């Protein structure tokens, strides 16, 4: 799914730290601004970077999958923000008993757009970074430069590496149980929980056993020693420094703008 895709682009040649810094900048901007227009602009800028990285299509595919989640956020905000001018209500006033319930207000709509866009903006950097950076380079950047303990960084890449294997095992387990007339029908949540057993238990056992074996193999090849080197030690290049400078400028400008009221809308009536 979100795997490294080898392409020849500017973004691919940037140091992982630069890309991680970019994620931070996007996060800061998304939190500083809450105007739906500004947030939308941030998302568009991320997509543009995706296209510069020649992974534009993949980025859009991933973002479109996020729309469902964004819709949930949107609805959630509308339902729980009844302040402001009521524009219409979900249940028509003419209805008995529930008439006039669940008002949709201008404040609610603004919050809805803002929060859902913000969610997308925050997550949008993920596909671009993961498709343009090899996990081991991220590990190297985190451990060597930021001094994150190797174990934590390693956990992240190992999870990525084993996801497909575990999913494949789950698929086999599912096939095996279906062959024994295992079926998950209906909407009953209790039945659905019970139905997890035949799938979850085997995979948990298998995963624990294999994890133990894997840990052993790792230690047999020296894992856990204090000092570790990397086959590829990437260094920050000129382009990286230029980009860092750019980030600093953008952040300063953004904070200045926000203080002066740009990109911020009144959400709570004052």
């Amino acid at each position, binding site marked *: 799914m979100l795997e490294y895709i080898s392409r020849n682009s500017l973004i691919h040649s940037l140091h992982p730290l630069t890309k991680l810094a970019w994620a931070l900048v996007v996060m800061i901007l998304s939190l500083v601004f809450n105007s739906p227009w500004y947030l939308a602009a941030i998302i568009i800028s991320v997509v543009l970077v995706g296209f510069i990285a020649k992974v534009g299509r993949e980025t859009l595919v991933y973002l479109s999958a996020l729309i469902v989640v964004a819709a949930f956020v949107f609805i959630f905000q509308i339902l729980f923000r009844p302040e402001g001018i009521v524009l219409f209500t979900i249940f028509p006033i003419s209805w008995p008993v529930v008439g006039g319930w669940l008002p949709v207000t201008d404040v609610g709509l603004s919050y809805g757009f803002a929060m859902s866009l913000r969610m997308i903006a925050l997550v949008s950097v993920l596909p671009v970074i993961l498709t343009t950076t090899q996990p081991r380079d991220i590990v190297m950047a985190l451990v060597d430069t930021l001094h994150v303990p190797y174990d934590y960084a390693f956990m992240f890449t190992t999870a990525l590496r084993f996801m497909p294997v575990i999913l494949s095992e789950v698929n086999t387990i599912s096939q095996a149980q279906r062959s024994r007339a295992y079926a998950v029908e209906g909407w009953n949540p209790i039945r659905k929980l019970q139905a997890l057993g035949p799938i979850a238990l085997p995979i948990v056992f298998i995963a624990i056993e294999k994890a133990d074996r894997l840990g052993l193999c790792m230690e047999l*090849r020296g894992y856990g020693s204090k000092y570790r080197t990397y*086959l590829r030690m990437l260094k920050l290049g000129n382009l990286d420094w230029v980009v860092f400078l750019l980030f600093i400028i953008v952040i300063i400008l953004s904070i200045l703008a926000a203080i002066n009221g740009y990109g911020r809308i009144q959400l709570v009536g004052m």
Partner: protein
Amino acid sequence: MSEIVNVENLTFQYKRGLQPALKGISFSVNEGEFIGVTGPAGAGKTTLLSCLNGIIPHYYSGNLHGNVIVDGITIAQSDFRHLANHIGTVFEDPDFQMVSISVEEEVAFGPENLGIPSEEIEARIQTSLEKTRISHLRDRAISTLSGGQKQRVAISAVLSMLPKVLLLDDPTSELDPIGTHEVFSAIKELNTQIGMTIIIVSQDIERLVENADRIFLLSGGELVLSGTPRQVCMQNEILERVGGRTPQVAEFAISLFSSLGRSLTEKQLPLNVADASILIQELFDEVEVG
């Protein structure tokens, strides 16, 4: 040829074991030898390998007696993580013994862990991949490889730590015939081309007999037989009694000669189809058809 592995009176009982898994095992292996270890399930083959590479006692504890010395190092007393510089291990499961996404990363993993400088890691990767003839797979994702290719990556990943002895615990039992052939060829080549000492556990007696200098038969924690493939296969009664077996052609020859009331010499015992073919031809020539 100097001795590279020396095991003296090795006895081991797992903490929760009801009886010893290994009972007074003694043997030695010379540098450059190809040793095949066989026997039924539960005989102690994996336990024996674990005592050679340090898993016992560093990872699994229990009651350990006797001496295990590999490449001059007393296993029980040495730093576990550096043992791979002397003796490397390849396991049965092609999927769960490797951690990396790409072949290159996997082969780099060991040296990286030990703080080897980048340039040297690069050199080691190149040589390790060449030795198993998978240089062309360097940039591939491990998940896209066949079983035989995966096991050769596992071997390379162990070789990059420059061990003198290579242990393999049933590396082909999960593979199809092509994969099994690829792996055994690679191992044999390591042995003949660079003199790597090989100790391989397998029940594929046909391949062991074809490749090994000596075969050890384990049963119930004891070293029941040890000798050249011919010597061991001549003892077919013992083999069968403990749940092992001889290659089909050997079984055939022994049974045939027994029915003929003739004695089969060790030199005559066929270990492969070619040998057996010659033997049959000799028999037929003796009676002269027509």
